[in-house]
């Protein structure tokens, strides 16, 4: 059973992390650029990754919490001081990025478009 959570911006993200149940199911954060009026993200790599991830999640039979985090618009992300880049909990270098919460596992950029890698990240237990 996958639970889906939608988050917008860093403050909401930080607040959410405090509410995570340590003994609950694994939490996976997907960081993406915000959507433009036409429904697609300004970030071309995110546009490519999203349908692949959606299709993967549709088939995934595991108990996880999938958190979609809207990082913000292009200008906000490109700023070196962007908290998603600087905060030690995320330390994002590229979007899209998928991070396993409290783990070392993450997939960055085009890695998010590869099924075998998504399988490794979502299906394996530590």
């Amino acid at each position, binding site marked *: 059973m996958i639970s889906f959570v939608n988050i917008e911006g860093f403050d909401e993200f930080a607040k959410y992390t405090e509410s995570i149940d340590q003994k609950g199911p694994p939490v996976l954060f997907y960081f993406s650029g915000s959507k433009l009026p036409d429904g697609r993200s300004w970030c071309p790599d995110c546009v490519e990754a999203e349908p692949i991830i959606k299709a993967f999640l549709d088939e995934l039979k595991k108990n996880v919490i999938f958190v979609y985090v809207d990082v913000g618009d292009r200008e906000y992300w490109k700023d070196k001081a962007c908290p998603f880049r600087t905060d030690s909990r995320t330390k994002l270098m590229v979007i899209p990025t998928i991070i396993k919460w409290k783990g070392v*596992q993450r997939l960055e950029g085009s*890695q998010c478009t590869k099924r*075998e*890698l998504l399988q490794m990240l979502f299906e394996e237990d530590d």
Partner: protein
Amino acid sequence: MTILRNFMRIANSFRPVQRIDNIFFLSWRTFSSHGTFDYDLAVIGGGSGGLACAKEAVNHGARVAVLDYVTPSPQGTKWGLGGTCVNVGCIPKKLMHQAALLGESIHEAISYGWEVPSPDAIKINWSALTEAVQNHIKSVNWVTRVDLRDKKIEYINGLGEFKDPHTLVATLKNGTKRELTARNIVIAVGGRPHYPDIPGALEYCISSDDIFSLGHPPGKTLVVGAGYIGLECAGFLNSLGFSATVLVRSVPLRGFDQQMALMVTNEMEERGVAFHHKCIPLSVEKLESGQLKARWQNTETGEQAEDVFDTVLMATGRYALTKALNLPAAGVTAVTGSGKIAAQTEQTDVAHVYAVGDVLEGRPELTPVAIHAGRLLARRLFADGLQHMDYENVATTVFTPLEYGCVGLSEEAALDRYGEESIEVYHAFYKPTEFFIPQRNIRNCYLKAVAERGGAQRVLGLHFVGPVAGEVIQGFAAAIKCGLTMEQLMNTVGIHPTVAEEFTRLNITKRSGKDPNPASCCS
């Protein structure tokens, strides 16, 4: 491929499953487009050499499988993919060495004017250190696995052994066995720490396998062994605030230049590490307090001694993991008494079976050596490569508190090979600029160049004890590869102020008898 594999899986499910002593034996056979082998290359061992060979092979179109498995240490320690270097070698070692250096820097900073509140209260939090180190290692394990998956290299987490020259059997953690065939097989199983055959060794002692993830601070530690592993461990433990004692069976850093080895151990002694020379361990027993009582004997005087420690770390050498491979099943007989594989060009006496890395007889046991040899081998196998590994003049560094970097021949080896009359040794003590203000010990800051005596004096070996020795020596390794001569070295203008420039300032020979101590800086 997936459709075919699914078909085979269904087909196999109709075949009777063999039951051998409660172990279910399933055999997967897939058809490779390259003939009747499952893989073009199977690599046994996912460490420095194995992974480099595997990744280079796929770059040239080979179908590759990597087998990796970590048998738990006597104390129960295990780790992930990446081999010794990543998990229990170079990487955590360097990180702990760095932690130790940073601790020293905090105190030195005071002399430079930094206001450090309560310097006496500064201490290491062992669990924070090991957590940080282990987190880094785990992220490297992850990135390594992602890399293999991305490159379509099959990773099998099982202990591999030969069934016949082209067939391997991997035993997984749950006991199931997986059989695979390969046209070529590379043995890259590396080695593990050796334990002396004395009472208490296996039961109570740890090794380098365990120190980097030790679940409690090591406390007062006895290190048995004075090779680079023993000295590096004793070095960082002492600097981190854990009392360290070293038992030296014969000489420290056997095989290395002994004059330089003495500088290294002198520095360690001056920092508080105790050395017991010509001593071998006799027994380790556990006391009621939980501490360990170790007994040892001086092999020259016959005297015995003992002391109580919190930890006893065995660093008495490493042995190659060839026994578990069942090499006879492959027909490989080129195995030395120590268990290592004799393979001059990485090819064993069975044409399609190769070996790289620490498992090789007579080759430097270093990660970059394994990586380079593994890559060149893959190119020869799959890309019409012709180049063979050059094992000469490989630079290395011992990361003791004061580091020792070297490339080429030791003075002893040069004397042995060329004779005293044909050798010239240039040497000097030096004073790193940064050492003055904090008044750091300069007594062991020393370097030397061993060269041919005649003509332009080709450099045979360079040796350096001092800070950042690895960084200092690396570039000179390339220079030696180009045939560096003393004439060229002396005509190289140094970068000032550095410690590396001291190589360009060498001008006093041992033969002259002149004082190698520096007069002053800048002249």
